[in-house]
C-alpha cells in the first residue's frame, strides 16, 4: 500500500512540475514571476499544456527564454507580448479581450441576460393577468353568516 502511495506521489510530483532544478532563477521573486508567466503560455507542441508543465523540448527552451527576459528586466506583460508577437494570441491560455474574442467573453453574459429578461417578462405578465376577486354580494354575506353562525358585518348602505 505504501509503495502504491509513494508511486502516486512520485507521479504527481513529476506532473506538477516540468521545470527542472537547473532552469530555475536564483532570485525567488523573479523565479515566481517566471512561473506565473510560464503558466499563462501554451506549449505550442502539445497545445493543451502550459509550458510550465510540458516536458517538450521547445517548451523547455521557451521557459528558459522567459527566464532570460525576466532576468534582463522585462515585465511579465512584456514577456507575454513578445510571445504573442511571434505565435499569435493562440500562445496565451487565457484569451485576450479583443474584437475576435468578444463573443467568447460576452456571449455567456448576453445569453444569461436574455434568459433573465424573458423570465422576468413572463413573471410580470402572469401577475398582470391574476384574476381580481370581486367582493361578496349582500346575499353571499348573509349565507356565509348563516353557515358560520356569526352576524353579517355592518355595512354602510
Amino acid at each position, binding site marked *: 500500500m505504501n509503495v502504491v502511495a509513494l508511486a502516486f506521489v512520485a507521479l504527481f510530483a513529476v506532473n506538477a512540475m516540468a521545470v527542472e532544478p537547473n532552469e530555475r532563477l536564483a532570485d525567488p521573486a523573479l523565479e515566481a514571476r517566471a512561473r506565473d508567466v510560464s503558466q499563462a503560455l501554451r506549449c505550442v507542441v502539445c497545445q493543451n499544456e502550459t509550458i510550465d508543465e510540458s516536458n517538450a523540448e521547445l517548451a523547455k*527552451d521557451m521557459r528558459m527564454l522567459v527566464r532570460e527576459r525576466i532576468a534582463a528586466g522585462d515585465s511579465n506583460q512584456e514577456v507575454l507580448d513578445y510571445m504573442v508577437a511571434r505565435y*499569435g494570441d493562440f500562445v496565451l491560455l487565457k484569451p485576450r479581450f479583443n474584437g475576435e474574442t468578444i463573443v467568447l467573453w460576452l456571449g455567456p453574459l448576453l445569453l444569461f441576460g436574455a434568459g433573465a429578461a424573458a423570465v422576468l417578462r413572463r413573471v410580470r405578465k402572469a401577475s398582470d393577468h391574476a384574476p381580481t376577486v370581486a367582493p361578496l354580494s349582500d346575499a353571499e354575506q348573509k349565507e356565509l353568516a348563516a353557515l358560520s353562525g356569526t352576524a353579517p358585518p355592518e355595512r354602510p348602505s
Partner: protein
Amino acid sequence: MAVKSRFVFLLPLAVVLILIAVFGKRLLDVAGGEDPRLLKSVLLDTPMPDMDLAALPGRFKTMPDDGLATADLKGQVSLVNVWGSWCVACLAEHPMLVEIEKSGAVPIHGIDWRDTPEAANAWLARHGDPYARIGLDPRSHTAIALGVTGAPESFLVDANGVIRYKYIGPITPEVWSSTLQPMIAQLEQEAAKP
C-alpha cells in the same frame, strides 16, 4: 405578439442549427485536408527577426563565410528552412530540397535547430547538403523568434528580408510547383522592379 410567441419554441432549434453549421464547417475543412494543428503565422509580411547564427563547425560543404544573419537575407529572394538531424519529417523533405538546389531556383538557407554539429554534419554528409548558408540555433532562440512549432518549417523571404510566406511541414513536389515556385517567381519580379 401572439404570432411571435407561437414561434418562440423554434428558437432553440435555430440556435442548434447555427451551432451545427459553425462546427460542421470546421469539421469539413479538416476533412478537406486542412490540418487542425496549423497555426496561422502572425509574422507574415514582417521583417525576419534579428539573428546572427553561428556557422556549423567542420561543415561537409565548405563555405567562404558561413553562419546566418538577418543581413544575409537581403538583396535576394531566399527560402529559409528550419530543420534538425533529429527530425524525421526533415529527412522526408530533404530530397526535394536537394532537387530545388540543383535547379538553382532559389538559395536555401538552413537553420539547424536544437542539433549538435556532429549529428548535423553526419546527416548532411549522408543525405546531401542543399543549403547555401547554415546557422545553428541550439537553444531555440531564433526558432521561437520565428514562431516555429515544429520542424520542418520554411520561410519564403523576399529581397528586402521580409517574410512573405510560411510553410509548415515537409515541402512536397506538389507544394513546390503549386505554391512556392509561383510565389518565388512573383517575388523575383517584384525585386527586379526599381
